[in-house]
């Protein structure tokens, strides 16, 4: 009798799961294998995390944070201050390349700070790369030069029409001709205005929690792409997928791939 009951409960549990097809939704790794995920094997934006995210079958690409140093070289780092995550001090825009080359993350594996040019783009031609440009230099309390940033990007052998994420609307005209530009904001109404004013913008990046399904549909109806981010759990993945965006930028890449490849 108890075995019959157990068998019935298992059947009930399995029959409750309604399979939906999310195969058209792209899965992108946030900063590699997830941003500030305490259980992640590798530190976010490290070369190891990016390579792992690009190697896992089912991943469509990565989103990475890019900052420019004093010498015009591009580094992968999310935070404004180096001392929060590495053995360095100050900010990336106020340091030289020589100094930044010596830095390591304060993580278990102590990965080296990675440069954008180190990514083997040619090994991952079928993957998408989203470069989130960090424009603010907190140490100098000023914005870095958009023209210098663009020149530094063009000096690297990037994939054709690389995707650029910008949250400062004044930077959009500098990049719109050479790159696929995506605008990032938490303000849906403001984003709609920007998307209308700049018809060449490819799409919109927004936190999953601040947008609903009908707003996602509004963006898609404008023939723009929309990617949702800050998705940190299987529950969050499910909720984001049900909004049917163009893609999700997930902090739990395995859960996202698992949900999409039903």
């Amino acid at each position: 009798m108890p075995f019959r009951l157990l068998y019935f409960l298992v059947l009930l549990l399995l029959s409750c799961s309604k399979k939906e097809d999310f195969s058209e939704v792209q899965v992108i790794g946030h900063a590699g294998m997830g941003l500030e995920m305490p259980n992640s094997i590798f530190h976010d934006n490290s070369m190891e995390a990016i390579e792992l995210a690009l190697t896992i079958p089912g991943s469509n690409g990565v989103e990475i944070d890019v900052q420019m140093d004093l010498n015009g070289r591009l580094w992968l780092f999310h935070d404004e201050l180096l001392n929060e995550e590495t053995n360095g001090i100050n900010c990336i825009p106020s340091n030289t390349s020589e100094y930044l080359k010596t830095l390591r993350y304060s993580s278990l594996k102590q990965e080296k700070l990675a440069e954008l040019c180190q990514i083997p783009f040619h090994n991952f031609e079928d993957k998408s790369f989203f470069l989130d440009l960090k424009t603010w230099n907190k140490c100098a309390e000023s914005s870095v030069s958009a023209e210098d940033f663009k020149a530094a990007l063009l000096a690297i052998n990037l994939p054709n029409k690389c995707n650029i994420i910008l949250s400062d609307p004044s930077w959009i005209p500098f990049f719109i001709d050479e790159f696929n530009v995506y605008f990032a904001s938490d303000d849906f109404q403001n984003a709609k205005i920007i998307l209308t004013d700049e018809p060449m913008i490819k799409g919109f990046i927004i936190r999953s929690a601040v947008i609903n399904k009908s707003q996602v549909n509004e963006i898609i109806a404008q023939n723009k792409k929309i990617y949702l981010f800050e998705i940190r759990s299987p529950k969050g993945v499910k909720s984001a997928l049900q909004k049917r965006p163009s893609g999700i930028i997930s902090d739990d890449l395995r859960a996202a791939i698992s949900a999409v490849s039903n």
Partner: protein
Amino acid sequence: MRTIILVFTFIYFNSFSQNLETKAKKSLNLLSLTTSYSYLNYELFHGISYTHHFPLFSASFGLQTAVKTLYSAQKFFPETNCSFVFRLIDKNTFQFGPSIQYNMCNQKVKVWHLYNDLLLGYSLFYGKRIQFFHTAGIGPFWETFKSDKNERYSIRSTNFNLKIGLSYAF
């Protein structure tokens, strides 16, 4: 010399202080309901385990499934594990000692990912007929999967695992 005497005294009192009658008493079987948290898998696992208390050590074998993945993503994420505990402190209702634990789990993330970890830590048991137990361990962790190019890809790291359970002795 003092150290040698100390070591022998320690072994004598911990390993040979039980008479045959006590040893016979300690051989019992336990069926347990378990819950464990695997740090790198970022998962809670629920399941059952079978433990046999031999006179000096305990051996267990368990089957578990990941709860978050099962309920949020309706995916089966099974884990099998075995462990050995050397009961350094072996009182009537309380046992404690170092443990070695091996966990293996499989997760379908488009392709199958295999996770193995070998953990060193401690275990404690409390109770008579109904026992509460707790195990914690830290050790190497390997994740293995086949990439899109059909190449075997393996990552090594350090994992941490916490387990609690309630057992019934029979």
